[in-house]
């Protein structure tokens, strides 16, 4: 024993006892359950921050012509409130919940990539700190959570606030993509064998589908943020009209992300409703297939309709018309869901415990949010109400009325599983009623305020008829919600210490997480019940009348891909979105010739030569893989080295090209051609460099004899990434070097 301790101490590893110390247990954990709880606690902390910001905003607006807050402070507060609530509360809490629940629901031991999981989580506090550090660095951003250009550009926001905002969102975006790749790969590769894809519980199914939306939508924002940061730090003009840029493009990029973002946080809430409503109605979900299928439709449609956020910007009647029609379509799949949940309750033996209360309220409030949403799809009506409190009321009905209520319901529902103790039902009811009354007091009246003409984003307002008392009602409601929040936090704490013991399955629910003990042991399950339908625990407790078996028809339901490969492919999909935005931006900004440097200053021949090296390296890394499979270790190492050499030549060639341009006076801020050229090729170069680092690590491992057994998922995964980098260059090369010469 002592020997082991000294060996561990010498190598810098921890003993089991040291590992169990709470600091190590929580700070260094890679266990999905602990990471899930860390996510949720972080979200709770920021929920309090964002909530206090909201209260300050409501205090300022409580009476007309108020001077409680300085206008600048007000702008900072509503920017930080929006950003915090979306990126530091809604997304982390849902990711945390899914982190805890999803592996349990599919009978998995852990997430597919536990370390990536920990990394993704720790980016949340980092992003939160970056964002809030702006308060110390000269003032928080005061540009709204949408940061419309040109207000967010240096001439109008010269403080560092927007830079910290953009950096924070970039960090958080990377974390979200990381965790979503993890969800996708976990569902694909970590399911217990009988958990076919068509037997997935709806929450897991929706997180799975939703993760595709995250990995496609977040990179669009990341590309926009990168462009904004380049604008601000390197003095370029992507979004500044005086330098030839376009502020409208920022809006397109932001809403191409921003609209899917609404669904990124709403779809998990749909998942929560789809779990809780059947359990508390004692009926299986009505129309599982429709609920599951309509999710795919929602995710798909949400990527198509962002322009309806821009009706008031003046896109023109033609564009408006198309987006009016397509936006209205979203009402169909969401309507299908609402009907399915209602039909589940119809004729059920409904138990109105706290989780169910929250879900019923969420369902009703979401219906209202949907109806006002449809009214915004009508461009003519949207022009009248978009910049008023009517819209504020609408999206708070989505974000609070649906999502916060669903999350509160889910926490009351799954808290016993997480802690082993029940939340107090009495305090839960208090939370629910205070929350419901407070929410509706705050936001129902804002519809009327908006229709009475009160604009949003104003720090105060004149004493017009009706405005004063309506705002006062709204503010009073906000404090009801704050009281509900306090009771909830008290309930979380006191129940953890003194709550009733929960047992494994306090709600008599049917999905696999309830087959584990509460809280589940480190390895989750010792034994799983047989799984033959979507409600394995129902089948186990009612062997005389089990659910009809869900058969297996498709190979795709049971196929388990190699996890590293699946992860890299998901990552590549995400990166494709990032490069697509940069390439489209290049095309847009260079559609018309502009004064100053242009594509004619680039040397097609020289670049063509070192591009050939890069393309050839795709061949060499393939040869390396083939040789690995055939067990020819030296040849594999050789081909790998050649790949690195070719990649290196490409990077050196690009460096020489950059130097030539700099020497002839072409810098990143020369004109929009130079800006887009350096941004696009620079980011590609960065990816090549990352690929080279990965290849060098592989080379080191190969030389050390790591891949002797002839199989290496790592080489395969890095190979895929390397091919991707090459293919991106095919497009970049065509667009930047070939296209101008063809047209």
């Amino acid at each position, binding site marked *: 024993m002592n020997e082991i301790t000294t060996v561990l101490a010498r190598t810098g590893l921890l003993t089991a006892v040291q590992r169990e110390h709470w600091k190590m247990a929580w700070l260094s954990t890679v266990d999905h359950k602990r990471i899930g709880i860390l996510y949720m606690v972080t979200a709770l902390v920021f929920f309090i921050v964002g909530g206090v910001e909201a209260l300050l905003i409501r205090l300022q607006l409580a009476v007309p012509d108020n001077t409680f807050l300085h206008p600048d402070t007000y702008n900072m507060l509503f920017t930080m409130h929006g950003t915090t609530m979306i990126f530091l509360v809604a997304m982390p809490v849902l990711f945390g919940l899914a982190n805890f629940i999803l592996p349990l629901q599919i009978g998995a031991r852990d997430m597919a990539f536990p370390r990536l999981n920990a990394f993704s989580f720790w980016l949340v506090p980092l992003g939160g700190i970056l964002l809030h550090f702006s308060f110390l660095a000269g003032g928080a951003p005061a540009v709204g959570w949408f940061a419309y250009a040109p207000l967010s550009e240096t001439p109008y926001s010269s403080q560092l606030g927007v830079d910290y905002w953009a950096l924070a969102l970039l960090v958080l975006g990377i974390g979200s993509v990381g965790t979503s790749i993890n969800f996708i790969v976990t569902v694909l590769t970590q399911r217990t064998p009988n958990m076919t894809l068509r037997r997935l519980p709806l929450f897991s199914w929706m997180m799975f589908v939703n993760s595709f939306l995250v990995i496609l939508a977040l990179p669009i924002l990341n590309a926009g943020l990168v462009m904004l940061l380049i604008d601000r730090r390197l003095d370029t003009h992507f979004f500044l009209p005086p330098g030839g840029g376009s502020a409208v493009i920022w809006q397109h990029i932001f809403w191409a992300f921003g609209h899917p973002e609404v669904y990124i946080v709403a779809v998990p809430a749909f998942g929560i409703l789809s779990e809780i409503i059947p359990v508390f109605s004692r009926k299986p979900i009505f129309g599982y297939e429709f609920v*599951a299928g309509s999710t795919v439709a929602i995710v798909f449609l949400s990527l*198509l309709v962002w322009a309806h956020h821009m009706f008031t910007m003046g896109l023109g009647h033609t564009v408006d018309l198309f987006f009016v029609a397509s936006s209205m379509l979203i009402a169909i799949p969401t309507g299908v869901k609402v009907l399915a949940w209602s039909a589940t309750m119809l004729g059920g033996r409904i138990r109105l415990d706290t989780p169910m209360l929250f879900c019923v309220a969420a369902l009703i409030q979401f219906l209202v949010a949907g109806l006002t949403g449809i009214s915004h799809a009508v461009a003519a009506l949207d022009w009248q109400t978009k910049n008023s409190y009517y819209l504020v009321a609408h999206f708070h009905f989505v974000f609070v009325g649906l999502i916060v209520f669903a999350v509160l319901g889910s926490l009351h529902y799954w808290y016993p599983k997480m802690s082993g103790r029940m939340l107090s039902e009495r305090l839960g009811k208090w939370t629910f009623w205070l929350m419901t009354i407070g929410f509706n007091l705050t936001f129902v009246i804002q519809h009327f305020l908006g229709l009475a003409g009160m604009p949003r984003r104003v720090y105060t307002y004149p004493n017009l008829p009706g405005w004063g008392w309506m705002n006062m009602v709204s503010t009073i409601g906000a404090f009801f919600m704050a009281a509900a929040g306090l009771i909830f936090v008290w309930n979380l704490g006191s129940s953890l210490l003194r709550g009733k013991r929960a047992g494994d399955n306090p709600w008599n629910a049917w999905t696999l997480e309830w087959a584990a003990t509460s809280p589940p042991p480190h390895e989750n399950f010792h034994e799983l019940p047989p799984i033959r339908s979507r409600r394995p625990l129902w089948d186990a407790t009612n062997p005389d009348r089990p659910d009809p078996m869900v058969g297996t*028809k498709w190979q795709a339901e049971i196929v388990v891909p190699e996890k590293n490969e699946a992860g890299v492919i998901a990552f590549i999909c995400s990166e494709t979105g990032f490069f697509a935005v940069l390439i489209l931006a290049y095309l847009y900004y260079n*559609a018309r010739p502009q004064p100053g440097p242009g594509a004619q200053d680039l040397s097609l021949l020289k670049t063509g030569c070192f591009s050939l090296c890069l393309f050839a390296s795709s061949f060499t890394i393939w040869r390396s893989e083939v040789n690995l499979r055939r067990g020819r270790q030296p040849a594999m190492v050789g081909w790998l080295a050649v790949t690195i050499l070719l990649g290196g030549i490409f990077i050196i060639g690009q460096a020489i090209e950059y130097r030539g341009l700099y020497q002839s006076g072409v810098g990143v801020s020369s004109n929009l051609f130079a800006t887009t050229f350096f941004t696009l090729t620079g980011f590609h170069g960065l990816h090549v460099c990352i690929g080279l680092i990965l290849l060098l690590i592989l080379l080191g491992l190969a030389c050390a004899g790591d891949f002797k057994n002839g199989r290496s998922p790592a080489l395969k995964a890095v190979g895929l990434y390397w091919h991707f980098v090459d293919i991106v260059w095919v497009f970049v090369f065509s667009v930047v070097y070939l296209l101008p010469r063809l047209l």
Partner: protein
Amino acid sequence: MTPFQFLISGWTWNAKTMVLGALSLIAYWLAFHDRRRIGWFAAALGVAFLTLMSPINTLADGYLFSAHMLQHILLLLVVPALLLLSLPESVSLAVRPRFFGHPIWGWVAGVGAMWFWHAPAMCNAAVSSAPVHALQTGSLVVLGGLFWRQILAPRDEERLPPPGAVIYLFSACVTCSVLGIIITFSPVAVCSIYTMPPADHLALLAAIRSGWGITLEKDQQIGGLLMWVPMCLIYLSAIFAQMARWFADSKTPIPTKI
């Protein structure tokens, strides 16, 4: 000219094509005797007829880029899909060697056709030259058939399984959307031939530009938007059908053993 007058007079009757259509309908009946599916075949002919002889064609002939785009969408996505639906299960569309049956080729055919024919040079050539136009019409139907074969082949085993099909359709939609976005927001004319005054033998131009209010920029926007939004809705409908197929047999009778 009012829109109504134009709808009456804008038809281009092409006897050869109509005879060809009638003959193909007879040939279909003789070959398959399939009473259930001949409706699909007739629908395919009907859409082709609308595309090639209705006022859409008149407008596409030098007047409106957006009408041209509508033709493309119908020829690439609607006509071939209906044709494939009209084929009975006895017809195998398996491709030998298997390498060419890989979905990537179908995908490239469907998406590539859209990108290729909207490259400015090809777009202009197709409007100004009759043989290129004929080649375009034919190739769109054939390439569209290759694209849809992966989804709508008459035999179930020759189709992609639903998850693969969803990815196939989704990625095709996104790629076409990107082109639609480029066309919608392009500050320069994509198909420059429409910016030149056409022969205008119907004296239609004044009605289009001032009467209907479709300016050059608007025309291109409508074209791009048609590709961006309604075209994607066709893919979306197909994705719906795939979800239905994926979940369809969940009510299978309970086998005795797991």
